[in-house]
């Protein structure tokens, strides 16, 4: 039998990658020290994977996974068809991703736009700030006030008539499709210039 103790690296290999040889098996059977070291490492690795799995599972309960699956499939459903998106000014396509995932409903979006416009109008009367693009903003107010469904095609810029029976899920996924439009892809060169965290370490 092997009389030498197993090295730390060999223990890692035995715990993660391969089975012990016959001689190592015998050594582990007769050397309490190595056997205890192996048991400790195995327990540690189990703890780490249990915690990793629990963290992800706590963040992604079954309902969230179901929502995610629905979004993926809904995204694929629109694949190859022109996307219908809301008539926000183009700059909104560059909103941070974090803000895209918030649950919401169409009336919240409409109320937010209305609030923004009221703020802009009030701001404009209070101070002489040049906000630019007053046209599209007014257009949104008119459409938002007149009809809850206000959206247009993303990149082509043509206005489309929208159906009134879209679910919130479909509505959200349409916004996502808009954010993935060629306009958003124009940011890619800037993205490529940004080093990864591990590259700057």
């Amino acid at each position, binding site marked *: 039998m092997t009389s030498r103790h197993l090295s730390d690296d060999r223990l890692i290999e035995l715990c993660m*990658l391969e089975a012990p040889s016959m001689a190592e098996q015998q050594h582990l059977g007769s050397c309490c020290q190595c056997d205890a070291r192996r048991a*400790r490492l195995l327990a540690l690795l189990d703890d*780490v994977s249990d915690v990793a799995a*629990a*963290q992800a599972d*706590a*963040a992604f309960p079954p309902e969230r996974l179901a929502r995610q699956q629905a979004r993926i499939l809904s995204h694929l459903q629109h694949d190859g068809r022109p996307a219908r998106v809301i008539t926000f000014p183009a700059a909104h396509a560059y909103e941070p*991703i974090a803000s895209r995932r918030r649950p919401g409903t169409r009336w919240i979006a409409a109320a937010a736009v209305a609030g923004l416009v009221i703020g802009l109008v009030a701001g404009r009367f209070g101070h002489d700030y040049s906000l630019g693009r007053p046209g599209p903003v007014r257009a949104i107010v008119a459409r938002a006030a007149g009809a809850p469904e206000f959206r247009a095609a993303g990149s082509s810029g043509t206005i489309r008539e929208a159906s009134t029976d879209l679910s919130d899920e479909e509505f959200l996924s349409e916004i996502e499709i808009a954010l993935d439009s060629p306009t958003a892809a124009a940011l890619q060169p800037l993205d490529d210039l*940004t080093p990864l*965290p591990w590259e700057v370490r």
Partner: protein
Amino acid sequence: MPLSRDSQLAAEIKALVAGGERDAARDRYSDLVARQQRRAVRIAYQYLRDAHDADEAVQDAFVKVFTHITSYREDLPFEVWFTRILVNACLDLRKSRARRLRWAVPMSSATDTTPTDPPTRDQSPEQRLVSTERAKEIATAVESLPGRQRTVFTLCHVAEQTTAEVSQALGLSEATVRVHLFRAVRKLRRLLERE
């Protein structure tokens, strides 16, 4: 070597797309998504440490997989091909997050790690586990691993892939994968092992 169930499914979907049966392909794809989803979010969450970003990366990866399914080669296990696409999606997310943070007002933390409140009866078993002191120690230790070590460790240990599969998924040599794996485990032992 026989194809895994997921590789067979992917091959079927590829054939359906190639035959112009997109609706049927999408239908089959929902099964494949369901089978891979849990594993995918575990990998992405471990890597990005942010539920929103992990969600986004996983969705991106699944959409890309379907969009490029005709380039799937059946001689590669689907899990390996998918993992590669998922890791790339995570990298893209990290890049865009770095860009976002560069323009944003500095915050104490960019992550939305799981809450660390004391356990209550309303919590799920997962939430109770992650709120223990030991779990916090472990999470901090894993988080302290450099990016590549954490990725390799996650794929080998959490996603239970072999070093050969991880080497294919990451485009690194198997020897490099082993080096990163050993460094990761040595560091975790140093930080976490108790006598």
